[in-house]
C-alpha cells in the first residue's frame, strides 16, 4: 500500500468516522441522563435518511427543507419514544430500560418496513453537486465536506449548549448527581426527554447527510447503531469531545485495517474494538476517572 492509498483510506475513515461520532454523541447524551445505552439510537439514523428521501421524492419538498423536516420529525419520534416507553418506567431500572430500547428499536424497524416497504429507497441528490475534489492525488467526495462540516457544527452547538446555556448546565448537573440536581429544582424527567430529543436529532442528521451516498433502507440502523455504540465505548461515554474522538478513531481503524487486510473484515473491526475496549480499558480511551458524563 502506497502513502497515497493510506491517505485515501484516512479520508474515507474520517467520513464514516464523523457519522459514527454523531451516533456516539447520541449514545453519550442519553447515557449521561439515564445511565442507559439506548439501542434504538441507530433507528434515529435510519429514520432521518428515510424521512429525508420520502419528503424530497414523494412530497417534492426542496432538499434543504426535506432534510430539516426529516430531522425535526425524527426528533419528535425520539421525544415520543421517551414519553411513551422510557418515562413510564418510574424506577429507572437500567436493565429494564435497556430492554425497552431494544424493543423500541425492533418496533421502529418493523413499523418502517410496513409503511415504506423492504426495498432500498432512492438516494438524495448531493447537497452540492459537482465532481469530486482531488488534493495531492487523494479524492474527496463533495458530500464528505458536508459530513465533516455538519458534524463540526453539531459538536460546537452541543458544547455551547452544555457550557453556555442554563438548561445545558442543568443537563450536566443531572449527569453528575441526579439527586443533587433535583434539590436545586431541576426537573430530571425533562432532562431525560431533552436528551432523547438531542440524540434523535443527531442520529437523524447523520442519516440525512449520508443519504446522498448510501440509500436508506429499514434495516440500516442496526449496523450503524452498533458502530456508534462501539465508538461511544471507545471514547469512554464521557463528553462530546470523547465521543467524536471515539467515532473518528473507529472510522480510521476500520478503513485502514480494511486497506491493510481485507475489506471483508471491515464490519468486524467495530466488534473487535468494542470487545477489546471492554476487556482491556472499560473506561474507554478518554474516560479517565471523571464523574461528569456529558
Amino acid at each position, binding site marked *: 500500500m502506497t502513502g497515497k492509498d493510506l491517505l485515501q483510506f484516512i479520508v474515507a475513515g474520517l467520513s464514516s468516522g464523523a457519522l459514527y461520532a454523531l451516533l456516539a454523541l447520541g449514545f453519550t447524551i442519553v447515557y449521561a441522563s439515564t445511565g442507559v445505552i439506548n439501542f434504538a439510537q441507530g433507528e434515529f439514523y435510519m429514520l432521518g435518511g428515510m424521512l429525508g428521501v420520502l419528503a424530497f421524492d414523494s412530497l417534492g419538498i426542496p432538499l434543504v427543507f426535506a432534510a430539516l423536516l426529516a430531522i425535526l420529525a425524527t426528533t419528535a419520534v425520539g421525544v415520543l419514544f421517551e414519553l411513551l416507553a422510557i418515562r413510564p418506567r418510574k424506577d429507572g431500572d437500567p436493565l429494564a430500560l435497556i430492554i425497552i430500547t431494544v424493543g423500541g428499536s425492533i418496533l421502529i424497524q418493523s413499523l418502517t418496513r410496513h409503511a415504506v416497504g423492504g426495498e432500498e429507497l432512492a438516494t438524495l441528490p448531493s447537497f452540492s453537486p459537482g465532481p469530486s475534489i482531488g488534493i495531492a492525488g487523494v479524492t474527496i467526495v463533495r458530500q464528505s465536506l458536508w459530513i465533516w462540516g455538519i458534524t463540526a457544527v453539531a459538536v460546537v452547538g452541543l458544547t455551547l449548549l452544555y457550557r453556555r446555556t*442554563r438548561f445545558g*448546565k442543568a443537563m450536566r448537573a443531572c449527569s*453528575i448527581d441526579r439527586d443533587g440536581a*433535583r*434539590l*436545586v429544582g*431541576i*426537573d430530571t424527567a425533562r432532562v431525560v426527554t431533552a436528551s432523547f430529543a438531542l440524540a434523535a436529532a443527531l442520529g437523524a442528521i447523520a442519516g440525512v447527510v449520508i443519504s446522498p451516498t448510501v440509500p436508506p433502507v429499514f434495516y440500516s440502523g442496526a449496523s450503524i447503531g452498533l458502530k456508534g455504540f462501539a465508538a461511544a465505548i471507545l471514547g469512554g461515554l464521557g463528553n462530546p469531545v470523547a465521543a467524536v474522538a471515539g467515532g473518528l478513531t473507529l472510522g480510521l481503524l476500520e478503513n485502514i485495517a480494511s486497506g491493510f487486510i481485507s475489506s471483508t473484515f471491515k464490519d468486524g473491526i467495530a466488534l473487535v474494538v468494542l470487545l477489546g475496549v471492554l476487556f482491556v480499558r472499560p473506561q474507554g480511551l478518554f474516560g479517565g476517572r471523571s464523574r*461528569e458524563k456529558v
Partner: protein
Amino acid sequence: MTEAREMLRVEKVSSGYGHVGVLEGVSIHVMHGEVVTLIGSNGAGKSTLLKTVAGVLSPTGGSVVFDGRDISGITPEKAVEAGLALVPEGRRLFGSMSVGENLELGAYARRRSRSFSSEFAEDLEIVHELFPVLGERVDQSAATLSGGEQQMLAIARALMSRPRLLLLDEPSLGLAPKVISEIFAILDRLRSRGVTILLVEQDASVALRHADRGYVLRTGRVELEGTASELLANDDVRMIYLGSWKKSVSGT
C-alpha cells in the same frame, strides 16, 4: 420573635425508606425567623425528617404544612420552588462544574421569576459577602475545594434559591473543629438576617448553642422538646447527648 407566624408544621408524620419505617408520628413546628435544631443519636430519624420535609422522601402518614400550604409528598424540585432549600448530607455538589456554575444552578428554581437577573446579581453579592473564599474560586471546579469550602458552597448554593426555610443536614460532618466554628459563625449571621433554619446536627452542644429551640428525636419519635437553653440544662440531654457524665451524675 417579632413575628409569631408559623413557617413549618410537621404533623404526626411517619416516613422511611421503602418498607422500612423510620419516623413514627413525629410532630414539630418552626416559627418564622427561628433556628430550630433536631438532635439525637444515629438512626433516630433526624435526616429522615429533613428529607421528608424537603420532598426527597414521601411521608407514609401525617402531613407537612409549609407557610399554610400542605406540601406532603411534594417532589424535591417543587419544594425548592416553594421556598425550601435542603443542604443535604454529603453536600451533593456538582463536582466537575465550577463554583460559579454551582451557584448559578442554585438559582435554577427561580429562573422564571420576572426580575431574575437583578435578583440573581443581588443574591450572588450576598453570597460572596458571606463566603468571600467562594468569590476567589469562582472558576475552580467544586471538587477541588477543601471540605469546609465545599460545605460553604453547598450552603451558598442553597441560599441562591432565596429559601424561606433553610434545611441543613449535618453541616459539621467530617470537618475540623476550626472549620465547624466558621460554618456556625456563618449560620449565626444568617440567623441575624432573619433566615429561618431547621438544623440537623450530630454535635448536640454546638447545635443547641446556635439555635432558639430544639427537638430530641429517639427511635423515630420526638422524645423531648424545648428552648435551646432548657435542653442544654436538661439532665437527660446532658448525659446522653452532651456527654457530661460526671456533672449529671453528681447532680442527681
